[in-house]
């Protein structure tokens, strides 16, 4: 593992963070009354679209897993379609999990679903980009000792920190402070975003810090 790899990882992550920051500030030039809290749903859409786009572009440019053997067009198309289906499935799965956690079943369904989409953007999209629609590979990455490259390692960190952010974001909801961001699902989306950003920031640093200890099976 070389330092250049880590540097590349850092730049990629910085671009992702930049896209989130842009999604906060750019729309206010085009849309009236745009603010993250008041027009929360719009922001969610813009944020997830921009993060997805940046992820896709970066994946195509950087190509972290160079080991794609076949590259026929039909294979690529089916792979892409599979990815779309996986993404939708993950959105619905997250929605179901939120409802199981106590989100209202009927009212606020759109809000809950957009939270699911956002969380999918932060977690499933990078997974799909890096690992492809391969459930076993996902499980491997998210179990102990399963990572095989720094890309997977950073994926593990960002995903777990996004989940953790969402999870922690639910805590302020019962407090009776009456703040606008305590409303469902704003605190959770903010938590997810902060978690994702924190993951993006910490993972290159963490990998750099531990670069002596990290030995990957395939490297």
């Amino acid at each position, binding site marked *: 593992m070389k330092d250049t790899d880590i540097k590349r990882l850092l730049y990629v992550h910085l671009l992702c963070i930049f896209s989130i920051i842009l999604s906060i500030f750019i729309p206010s030039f085009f849309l009236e009354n745009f603010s993250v809290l008041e027009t929360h749903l719009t922001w969610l859409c813009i944020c997830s679209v921009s993060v997805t786009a940046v992820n896709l572009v970066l994946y195509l440019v950087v190509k972290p897993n160079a080991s794609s053997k076949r590259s026929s067009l039909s294979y690529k198309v089916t792979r892409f379609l599979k990815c779309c289906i996986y993404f939708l499935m993950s959105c619905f799965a997250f929605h179901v*999990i939120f409802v199981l*956690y106590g989100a209202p079943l009927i009212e606020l369904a759109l809000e809950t679903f957009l939270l699911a989409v956002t969380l999918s953007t932060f977690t499933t999209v990078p997974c799909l980009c890096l690992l492809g629609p391969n459930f*076993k590979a996902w499980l*491997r990455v998210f179990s*102990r*000792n399963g990572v095989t490259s720094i890309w997977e*390692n950073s994926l593990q960190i960002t995903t777990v920190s996004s989940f953790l952010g969402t999870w922690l974001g639910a805590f302020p909801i*019962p*407090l009776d402070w009456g703040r606008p961001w305590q409303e469902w699902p704003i605190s959770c989306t903010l938590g997810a975003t902060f978690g994702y950003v924190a993951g993006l920031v910490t993972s290159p640093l963490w990998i750099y810090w531990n670069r002596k200890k990290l030995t990957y099976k395939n490297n």
Partner: protein
Amino acid sequence: MRLGSGTFAACCVVIEVLGVALFLRGFFPAPVCSFSGTEHQTESPAPEPSAGAISNWTKLPPPLFSKVVIMLIDALRDDFVFGSKGVKFMPYTTYLVEKGSSHSFVAEAKPPTVTMPRIKALMTGSLPGFIDVVRNLNSPTLLEDNVITRAKAAGKRIIFYGDETWVKLFPKHFVEYDGTTSFFVSDYTEVDDNVTRHLDKVLKRRDWDVLILHYLGLDHIGHTSGPSSPLIGRKLSEMDSVLMKIHTSLLSEERETLLPNLLVLCGDHGMSEAGGHGASSVEEVNTAMILISSAFERKPGDVRRPKYIQQTDLAATLSIGLGLPIPKSSIGNLIFPVVEGKPMREQLRFLHLNTVQLSKLLQENVPSYKKEPGFEQFKVSERLHGNWVRLYLEENSSEVLSNLGSKVRRQYLDALRALSLSLSRQAAQYDVYSMAVGTVLVLEVLALLLLSGPRALSGKAELDVPLPSPAFSLLCYLLPLGLAALHVTVCTSAGGTCYLCSLPWLTAGGVMVLISTLLCAVLSALTGMFAGGKRLSKNPPQCNSRSSELDLLILLGTVGHTLSLGASSFIEEEPQTWYFLVNTLCLALCHEIYRNCFLGDDCAPQRCPHAGEDFDGVAAAPQGKSPGPDVWELDRASRHPSPLGVLRGPERWMVLASPWLILTCCRLLRSLNQTGVQWAHRPDLGHWLTSPDHKVELSVLAAVSLIMIFVLVQKRCSLASKVAMAFGLLGIYCYRVAIGNLLFPWQQNNKDISKGITEARFVYVFVLGILFTGTKGLLKSQITADDFTVKTVGLWEIYSGLVLLAALLLRPHNLPVLALSLVIQTIMTQFVWRPLRHNAAEVTVMHYWFGQAFFYFQGNSNSIATVDISAGFVGLDAYVEIPAMLLTTFATYTGPVLWASHLVNFLTSEASSGSALSHACFCYALICSIPVSAYIIFVTSLRYHLFIWSVFSPKLLYEGMHLLITAAVCVFFTAMDQTNTKS
């Protein structure tokens, strides 16, 4: 000497219960009361001060009113009368308030805003302590000095119609009464018709002096459909017409008597926006109070806003109005506008009587009473009053008299206000010494548990009882002496207000010895830790990485929950915390299962040098210091690789689906009862089911749940208990039909509602039968050793007996909670714990978490208002204290108790290692003590918080009760463990 860790834990929890009890005794102050006993009749009233001159006014003044009618409307919030609702629905009352001869007030009720303490406050004028709420469950006779007892002693004839609580408080006081029960909250017409139907007859009669009416309907409407329900308006109009009827009848009668009559309209407490009461929100605290009498002069065109008074002021006013002595423990002021129309001499006389009574109470309760501003003002005004009387008797000019008189009056009113202020403050003083001693006990026990954790959870599950070195033991002998000296110092300086100081010397000495023994044990455990720590560091801990995510979650959950107890809104919404934790637990299990199934066991016990050392670091570093039993890994070496990899076919699918099934069950249960505060008013399935229109659905649901319970429970019982179980469950259905909750299919509408005594007792017989069979099996397994199946069957029978009892006591819409808890237990046992081979500590914590979640699933919350008292009446004719309390406790803590007893069953039937039960017992004790100890500290530091009575105190009582239950569970565990080791 060696001690099993189970026994050790049980002892610890028992001591902890003692500590918490001591803390509670100090935390809930004894109410301000008069010590001069009940021989009040003999005492003569204070004579008028006369400064040398001889006054002939030494007796009590004569009554101001000939008849008094008290119309108490339960949950009459102030805006129901004075707000827009009052204008719309209570035209007559509004007319009286605005134009008639009346005085209207907003009477402030002190929390707890629960009916019985409020009735006591109205009639005694004292502030019942918070602990009275708990006594609300068994309504003892009111022994304190009160208006009703005084009136009866003075020969007044009192008639009462309304809430039964009055009859329980004053069992022999009414010449005629008809109690209505607040048992059936869904009934809001008949309870009030039962009161009103007597009115016509009674109002015509002349043979009574006091009539008390207590209408419950409004409160019942609030509980079932909230304050904005359209039913409220209809009920208010009904109350308005009742008031009009009484008032006109009193007016027409007045023409024939000399004295005017008094009509009091008041509420006992308000109603929150959710429809309940018990806490201290403005809506619950502010009640309407209107005094109506033709004696009150009213200048035309003077519009007054209702003034704020205290609820306790009514007792003193009523006593004056009826010509009775003021109740001794009353802290209320005379409502002055009532006597405003009287001559100056009488006004001053009344005020003097009131101040004398209050200052006497102050002398009895405050040692430094002479320094209180109210007392000084009282002395000044009494002297001025004496001068005034002398002038009056010497017949001075009226100008001087009235000027001086109004000055004295102002003095008296100020004195009254100051006196009752300092008295009501006195009612909320903490006994810090007892609290501190209790806290020390609890903390020492917790420290001991934490320190002995690593060894108690080691393979042998045994602890050394350390024999200290001589120097150390000398310290241990000296400690109690030092503590005793401290005790004497504190007690002599505090002057008898502490509970501990009022205890006999021997008991207090015992407490001191206990404290010092525990301290010595903690110290020796600490030294042992350091000695052992050196040894441990030589052979580094093995890599026990298998499910450290789960352990981390358990640790985080325990710490997070404990910390959340410091914030009032987290306490109110504690159900959400537990649901959240249980869901996360399920997801973590899901992750573990999927990893195991698809990837095989990826964590065979090998050294794992990279990736994820952050987790290991957390788990291994704070050995013994971090709360949570997750840090002790045990029985790990015996794991076979890939337990789930070998599963094939439907069982594999069941394993994969089980977390999702459990999550779905939890979500269903969660929507059954909305609890907490913020979301409590949301519509939930429970309300939908209990509404009278959905009886059929409720019946079907209850029947399905009962059948599910039978199917799930019977498979491990002996034949006799199977039959008993079936009959028992059938009996439960019959019982619910008899009391009118459910319907038989052939029955369209049930007409006669009985108390269902026979049916309930029928079920009790089977419960006792099953429990008896189970105990017999256990005893048999004791004698005929190594008969393993007899023992497990016996344990399961005890468990199923408890399930049957719970099914009887829980409300019918909560039967699914019971059924689904059995479903979850079965799924977890079959598809999660058994295949994944979790260790005893993890299984225990999971049981505990689920037990807590089920506590809230069944509709409990951290406010006293949700305790289902009706469980204590099942199968009983009348209130019998001990069984009712036991039944209510069991019904409230069904969730934790059933999960704990399932834990015993599971661990015994697995029998993987002999020490599993003692490990479980230790873990259970530890995980229950952590929140209790932390909470005690939080409560102590927050004791002047605004929500101390409404949020923190009820939770404290719940925690104390939970600890008591835990102690019982731990003792049961230890007993089972003993039989285990013997056989």
